[in-house]
Structures are given as structure tokens and as C-alpha cells.
């Protein structure tokens, strides 16, 4: 008996003006697996995630979450489905008018109806899980370094114990040491929560640490997919060029 995929893009297409970004994308992630989505800039990696999150509408195809097509769900039901999803945005996307703890507890307070006192306690616990001290809770995002903002964003993503996590360029703009720490945190949290994860990254070190599987997106489709361990033996020219950081031989 086959296990139902946690998340699946089935024949998804998306076009902006004359530019076709996704062209019948087929991609599935099994429950509990961590997938890294690689690809050159402008190949539609962020669009792929935004379609799954309902932040954009696909022109064709469907996105299945736990076997349910969420492409055309009414906004209210779609928001309800987000209860089991966490997302770490590339720039952190922390609300700069709120202190860190309210950022982390945002969903708890505003969507789940948790009281502010309990929400704060849970936010401080989540901050501890990403190695941020309790005094950070009362600071504002503008008072944090880039690495701390990423950690706070990660705390916000995991505070509701989601079953599906998305990471958009989790290590972009960070020094190698901080990036390494973020990678370890992501791996640790994904493993502890036993959740499914989809990450977009250009960082091969990050992909090797946080992913079980790697897929290469190019021309609107997946052109290669394998385990993180297979990366070094991949015979696809784009994957080879990506690993070596060399120009692609056309």
C-alpha cells in the first residue's frame, strides 16, 4: 500500500506575462522527509512555495496537501489549513512594530485565541529552542542581528508544532558560522518535530545538512532528483555546475 504524500504539486503551471516560470511541475514530498529545492535564480523556486502556501494562484494544475487540493480552497479554509504549516521567510519577515515575543506568538494570539500570558511563555520556550535568550523576547526586530532575526523567524515557524515547514533561503546573507548554526537548528527542529520540510536554497552546504532529498528545478520542471548523498555523483550537467560553482556548459 502506498503512503499518501504530505505535499504534492501536480502539473502546476505559472506564467507572468510572457514568461513561463513553472511548466507542468510535478513534485511530491513524503511525510517526514526534508526536501531541498535547488535551482538557478529566476527558475521559480519561490513561486513553487508561494503556490503551496496560497500566496499565488496557479494557472493550471493542483497542489495537494495531505491529499486535499488546496488550489481553489476559499481563503478562510486555506487559512485554517495553515495551522499545521510553518514558514521561515528569506528576510525573516518579522513584524517590525511588534516585540520579538509577539512575533513568535502571533499565530497563537491572533488565530488560535491563546491568552497573552500563555502565548508569551510559549514564545519564550520557542526562542530557547532556537538558542535565543529570554531577554531577546522584549526587543524589537530592528534591534537584532541578521542571524538572530532568522532564529526568531524559525521560532515563529515552529511554535505551533507544525507538520509541514517551508524554508526560503534560510542561510542567505549570513556568515558561514551563523549559517552553520541555523542549518543545525533547522535539522534539529525538523527531526524533533518529525515534520515534513521543503527548503529553497542556493547554499550547497545548507542543502546537505538540512535535506534528505534534493530536487533541481529548471525550465519550470524538476530536471533531477536524488538523495543528498547522491549529489556528488549526479551526472546532470546543471547539478554538476551547481555543486562546483562553475558556469553551465550550454
Amino acid at each position, binding site marked *: 500500500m502506498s503512503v499518501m504524500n504530505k505535499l504534492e504539486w501536480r502539473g502546476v503551471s505559472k506564467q507572468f506575462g510572457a514568461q513561463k516560470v513553472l511548466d507542468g511541475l510535478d513534485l511530491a514530498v513524503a511525510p517526514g522527509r526534508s526536501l531541498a529545492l535547488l535551482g538557478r535564480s529566476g527558475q521559480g523556486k519561490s513561486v513553487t512555495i508561494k503556490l503551496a502556501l496560497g*500566496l499565488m494562484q496557479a494557472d493550471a494544475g493542483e497542489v495537494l496537501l495531505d491529499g486535499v487540493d488546496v488550489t481553489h480552497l476559499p481563503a478562510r479554509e486555506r487559512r485554517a489549513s495553515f495551522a499545521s504549516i510553518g514558514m521561515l*521567510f528569506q528576510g525573516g519577515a518579522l513584524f517590525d512594530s511588534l516585540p520579538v515575543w509577539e512575533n513568535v506568538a*502571533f*499565530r497563537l494570539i491572533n488565530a488560535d485565541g491563546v491568552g497573552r500570558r500563555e502565548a508569551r511563555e510559549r514564545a519564550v520556550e520557542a526562542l530557547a529552542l532556537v538558542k535565543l535568550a529570554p531577554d531577546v523576547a522584549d526587543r524589537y526586530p530592528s534591534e537584532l542581528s541578521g542571524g538572530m532575526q532568522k532564529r526568531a523567524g524559525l521560532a515563529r515557524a515552529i511554535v505551533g508544532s507544525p507538520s509541514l515547514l517551508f524554508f526560503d533561503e534560510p542561510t542567505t546573507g549570513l556568515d558561514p558560522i551563523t549559517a552553520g548554526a541555523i542549518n543545525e537548528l533547522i535539522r534539529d527542529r525538523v527531526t524533533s518535530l518529525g515534520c515534513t520540510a521543503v527548503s529553497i536554497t542556493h547554499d550547497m552546504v545548507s542543502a546537505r545538512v538540512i535535506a534528505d532529498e534534493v530536487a533541481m528545478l529548471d525550465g519550470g520542471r524538476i530536471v533531477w532528483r536524488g538523495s543528498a548523498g547522491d549529489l556528488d555523483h549526479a551526472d546532470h550537467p546543471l547539478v554538476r555546475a551547481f555543486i562546483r560553482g562553475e558556469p553551465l556548459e550550454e
Partner: protein
Amino acid sequence: MASLSQVLLGPVAALGRATRDALASVGRVARFAGQGIAAALTPPWYPRQILSQFLSVGFYSLPVVGLTAWFTGAALALNIYSGGDRFNASTVMPQIVALGITRELGPVLAALMLAGRVASAMASEIGAMRATEQVDAMVTLSTDPRRYLIAPRLIAATISLPLLTLITDIIGIAGGMQVSHYLIDLAPGIYVTNTVDFITAWDVESGLIKAAVFGFIIGLMGCFHGDNAKGGARGVGRATTSAMVSAAVLILASDYLLTSVFARP
């Protein structure tokens, strides 16, 4: 080389495109307004956000609106003294100041000051949130940005401006009273009595109704342009300017329409 028909029809086609784009913009604003009103009138509401917007839109606008009102009332009284003296208008200075402030200058000037201070601030804040994916983040946190960001601003602007206008009316009349005391030695007590005896409830009410409409326009333009900001910092700057200009133009246009409706023989 363009054919004769292309040359002749070019301007018509351009006019058609401009008309279509303008109608599409009106449609987008109307849709946004409808969604905003629906979000403002139905739960869930976010009381902290609404309170915070009341402080930002209403309370922090008091100094600028108060100063504007005083100077406007004083300048109006001066004009009546210097220009209206030709037909003895200075004898009815309290009445003219009261009528001018409550029916027209109070709501319009308070609204224009708020368009500059509040609509632009709303557009830049929401635009910056769009540019930095904070609005997208809110959606992924199971929270509707229309309810969390837009509705509180519309509610606060629509309710705050009539309250500010009421204060504007009082301060504007006080400005006129001070000038009339200085220029024509009219006792403040007599000035107040003349004002109260003359103005009707409708003079004040019509100004407050106008103010509520202007407040909604300010909130709507600030939120709409911020929500539709594109292209990073430059786009946010454009949205800020557009919010302020469009709010000011719509305030003046709707002022004429409302005055036409309210005008009674």
C-alpha cells in the same frame, strides 16, 4: 511605416486604453473598499490594533489639527473684518465664522491635514510590510491582513475624523472670537451667545457626516495604495505620494457632492 488608419485611430486607441485603465482602477478601489467594509463590520476584530490606530490617527493628529483650526478661524475673522466691512459684514462676524467653520472649513481642513499625515503614513507602513513579505507572513500565520491591517485603519479613520472635526469647530470658533475681540472689541460672551443662537444642529451634523466620509476616504486611499505598492523602496515612495494626492482630490470632490446633497434652501 504606419498606415493612415493607424495614424488616425492611434489617439482613439490611446484614449480607449486610458479609459479602460481608469475604469479598472475604479473597480479595484471599489472591490478593495467592499472587502475592507466587510472586514470592518464582521468578526473577528482586533481591539488592540483598532485602539492603536485610534491613537495614531486621532490622538496624535490633535496638535496639527488644533493649530490649523485656530489659524483658520482667526484668518476667516480677519477676512470678514477687512473685506466684509464694505457691506457691514463685521457685525455678523461670529455667525459667518461659525457657519464657515462648522459646515465647510472644519471638516475639509481637518481632512486635508489628515490626508497628509495619516494616509501617507498608512501607505508607507503597509507598502513596506508588503515589500518585506510581512503581509505574506501574516497570511501564513492564519491571520487575514484585511482584518488585522486594513479594517482597524478604516474604522479608526472613519470615527476619528468626526471627533477631530468637532474639536476643530470649537477651536476654529475660538480663533475667530479672539480676533474679533482684538479687532472690533466684541466681548467673548457676546460672541459665544451670537454663535450659539445662530448655528443649528444641522450645521454641525452636516460637517460631521462629511468628516466621516472624508475619514473613510483617507483610510481607504492609505490602505489601498500601500497594499498595491510594488517595486521596493521606490514603489513605497510612489504609493505614499499617490495615497496623499488621491485622498486630497477625493476629499474635495466628495465635499462638493455632499454639499450639493446637504444644501437646503
